[in-house]
Structure formats: structure tokens, C-alpha cells
């Protein structure tokens, strides 16, 4: 019962979708302060589309590894915007990592984070400190790699990733946006949490809690 098949991976996506949906207004408000207030809607619609497509694909017998490309497509076409291409790249990069796998082992799950980080970095070409979601995905990915190298168990890896993610999110407060919509505010973006950073933390937390549930260990 250690592995996640397509249905179980879909359940993981559903948890992400649920958590993002709960945070929809909060994310909209964060985006409103420095952008156009739609980040909550974009993320919520994107993940809802991912869940719909994953349910269909897994009921057609798709393998867990096949879901990522499907997720990429459905997120992208439901959302467009900045987050559509970024998370589509994230899912595609994960899809490459897990290509052909019928189910993912628990030990494979933390690897999602570096995969997402590299997909987002490749598409968005942001640098650390630009006040974007990469300021969460980047540190979280490094935390995963370090913890795996130290031999930590999957959930423990995700625990340190989440910690790094939260630190990354808080660090965006002190950054001035230099890419994306908020960059036009210049110094006025200072003091505000980046919305994309905030939603990234929610996804990572859902990943951790979803894996914990799957492993029968409850939410952290």
C-alpha cells in the first residue's frame, strides 16, 4: 500500500485543489495588493480542471505517471494567465520524471517539488529574489534534495520542504518585485507577500498532508 496509483494521485491533486479553493479569496487579496487580484481564481480554476481531467484519465486506465501531462494541459487551457504556463511547465517537468510509471512510490513523491521548481524556472526565467513563486519552489526543492541526500523518510523530507517553503514565502515580503505584474509597483510591492509564493506553500502543504493521509499517518 505504499505506492500511489492514478486514482490515489488524483486524490492528492484533489486535496491541493480543495486547499487552494479554500484560500481563493485570501490569494485574491494578496494579488489585489500588488497585482490584479485574480491569482486565487486562476489557481482554483486550474486545480479544479486538473482534478476533472485526472478523474477522467484515471477512470480510462491511465497510469499515475501519465496524469502529469494531462494535468499540464488542463491547467493551461483552463487558466492561461501567468500561472497557466508556469504550472503547466511544472506538471510537464514532473511528467518527464515519472514517465511510464503506473504508480508512484511514496519515496517518489518529494521529487515532485524539484520537478515543479525546474519546470517553473525554465518557463518563467525568474531569479531568486525576484519576488515570485520561485522564491518558494526554489528553497523547497533544495530542501528536498538535501534531506533526501541525508536519507530522510519521504514525510520527513516534505516536512523540511514545507518549512523552507514557508520561510521562502515570508522572505518575499522584503523583496521588491522585478518580474510579473507586481514589478510595475516598484518599491510599493515591499511589505507584501507574493501571491504566487503563498499558493506554492499551500500546494506543498497539501502534498505533505496528502501523503501523510495516504500513509495512514494523518495530517501533520
Amino acid at each position: 500500500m505504499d505506492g500511489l496509483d492514478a486514482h490515489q494521485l488524483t486524490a492528492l491533486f484533489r486535496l491541493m485543489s480543495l486547499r487552494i479553493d479554500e484560500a481563493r479569496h485570501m490569494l485574491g487579496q494578496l494579488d489585489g495588493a500588488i497585482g490584479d487580484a485574480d491569482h486565487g481564481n486562476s489557481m482554483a480554476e486550474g486545480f479544479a480542471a486538473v482534478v476533472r481531467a485526472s478523474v477522467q484519465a484515471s477512470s480510462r486506465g491511465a497510469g499515475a505517471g501519465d496524469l502529469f501531462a494531462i494535468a499540464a494541459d488542463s491547467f493551461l487551457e483552463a487558466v492561461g494567465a501567468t500561472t497557466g504556463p508556469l504550472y503547466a511547465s511544472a506538471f510537464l517537468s514532473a511528467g518527464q520524471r515519472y514517465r511510464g510509471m503506473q504508480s508512484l512510490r511514496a519515496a517518489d513523491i518529494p521529487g515532485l517539488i524539484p520537478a515543479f521548481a525546474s519546470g517553473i524556472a525554465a518557463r518563467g526565467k525568474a531569479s531568486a529574489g525576484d519576488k515570485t513563486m520561485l522564491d518558494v519552489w526554489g528553497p523547497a526543492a533544495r530542501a528536498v534534495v538535501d534531506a533526501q541526500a541525508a536519507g530522510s523518510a519521504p514525510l520527513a523530507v516534505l516536512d523540511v520542504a514545507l518549512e523552507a517553503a514557508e520561510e521562502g514565502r515570508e522572505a518575499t515580503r522584503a523583496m521588491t518585485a522585478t518580474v510579473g505584474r507586481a514589478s510595475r509597483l516598484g518599491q510599493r510591492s515591499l511589505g507584501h507577500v507574493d501571491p504566487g509564493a503563498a499558493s506554492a506553500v499551500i500546494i506543498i502543504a497539501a502534498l505533505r498532508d496528502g501523503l501523510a493521509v495516504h500513509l495512514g499517518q494523518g495530517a501533520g
Partner: protein
Amino acid sequence: GKKLMNAVKDLVDESLAGALVAHEALIAPVPGTGRAVMSRAGPRPGKVGIVIGGGAGHEPGFWGYVGKGLADAAVVGNIFAAPPPGPILAASRAVNGGAGLLYIYGNFSGDLMNFSMAREMVEAAGIPVRQIVTNDDIASSPPDNRGARRGVAGNVFVFRIAGAAADLGASLDACEAVTRRAAQRTYTMGLALEPARLPDTRRPSFDLDADQMEIGVGVHGEPGVEQRPLASADDAADLLLDRILAEMAPARGDRVAVLVNSLGGTPAMELYILTRRIRQRLKAHGIGVHRTLVGPFYTSMDMQGVSLSMIHLDDELAALLDHPCQAPALTVTGQPT
């Protein structure tokens, strides 16, 4: 914060459906997508296809600028969100006349990414695509970093130039060149009296006190660059015009076209008061005005406020502005207007 709408999720599709019936003689849906419209006049073999687009919430942008002598297709995303590659691809296929495509859209990271992804796919299918990324909003970045600026209401002039050039049979190279020049010579500055309200929350997209105005707002409810006490119409017009003139630096005898644009909630009476002042001042500077557009050409939902756009004309650009066009939001006849 009241709005006439049905379910929030249907807002974009329903208003697009309304545009398609109201202007059925001019525009039609692009096959295979619910989020793109094309001109009934196109595609024409051998003509460069012009594809424009961006987020919804700017009505009559973008479908209002589709028609003969203007764009061939417009792609529309969710509210204030760039369209995904799918409908851009569908529109590209639908209006390909064999002479290549020109994409024109505003400089936002979402539009850049999605249009670029579509472009890769279209070019992979053997259709050459050029892109003009507009950045007319002078409030959004200093002049030495013009490439970082947003593309806003000045798009109307850029669409117009591209559409006229393509209609006159210019090659893809020529279309791209003249459109790029138009984009480089277009400047916009906006201000808001009241922020737009997002349809789902009905919350203002930024906070603004009862006696303040927000200078340098974008067209997506982004906050501007500073707040000031609400000014008189003349002072507001001066503020917008001064900034534009400082960058455009026209010489006496130069010609411009002017767009005094409602951001959605500002009525004609107020727009024309500003227009009067702007024209008076341009006259004092010895600058000729070739054409003046006044109205809700490029909105930000129900935002109260105005933007001023000006394009610095040369003979070719002026002639292209006079070329006839017929689209839902802009008709130019052979006659003077």
C-alpha cells in the same frame, strides 16, 4: 459594487456571446474554441493575418477591433488573465491566409508566455509568426526601461495601423515594421477615480479614499504609482498630457492622434471635458491632431477613470489611420470624421 450578471463563471462567455450576436455581420466564432472571434471579411489569401488578444474585462477590447481593415481575429482569456495557447492556435489557423501572421498583445508576463507557446506551435506547423508586444503605459516603468511597461489602451492605435497595413497588402516584414514603429510611438497614461470591482467578490481591486485619485493605473485593476487628491478635469488632463508630451517630445507642426478613453464607469460628459482641455493645450504647442477618439474603447470592467493615449504620427502612419475599417468598436469611412 452592483453588476448586471448571471453566474460569475459565465461572465466572459456570455458577454462574448452577446458581442457575437450584436455584431454578427462583422464577426463570427473561430471554429473549435469558445474564446476567439474572427472577421467575416477574412481570411484573404495573400494577406497577413492579424491576431490580437488578452484577458477579458476590457470590452470592447479585443473583439471590438476585429473586422475589415483591422484585426482578423481576437482571442480572449478569463477576466484579466491572458488566454491559453489553445484558442490562440485555433485563431491562428483560422485566419492564416498564407502570408504569415502578426500577433499583437500587451506586455504582460501571462500574455508573453501564452502567445509565445502558441507561436511555437504555429511556426512548427510552417506558418511564420511575428509578435508585437505593446508597452505604451508610461506610468508602469521609467523611459530607460520601456521594455518593462504594460500595454494598454494605446493598443487601439497599434491594432489600427497593423490592420490597415495588412489590408493594403503589406508583406509580413512590412506589417511588422510599421506596427512596431506605431507601437514605439504610442504613449498612454491613466488615472482612476474608483477602482474596478472584481465580479466574484465585488471588492475594489485597490483602496482609494473618497477624495483621492490613483495615478498611473493599469487596465487590470493593478494599483497605480501614486495617490493624489482628486483634481479638477483640467488638472487631471494636464497631468496625463504633460507626462506624455515629456516623453514623446513632439516638435511644433508634428501631428498626433488622440484617444480619450473611459476605463468603464466614466461617462461621455466627463471625457469630453478632458478632451477639450487636451486639444486646447496641443493647439498651444502647435501640434496638429489628425484624429480624436473619445469613449469606452478599452475598459477595465467598471473602473471609473480615464486614460489618454497619443500616437506620434508620420505621413505613413497618418495615412494608415485614415484607411477605412469596419469593426464593432471602430468604423472609419472614406469620409472625414
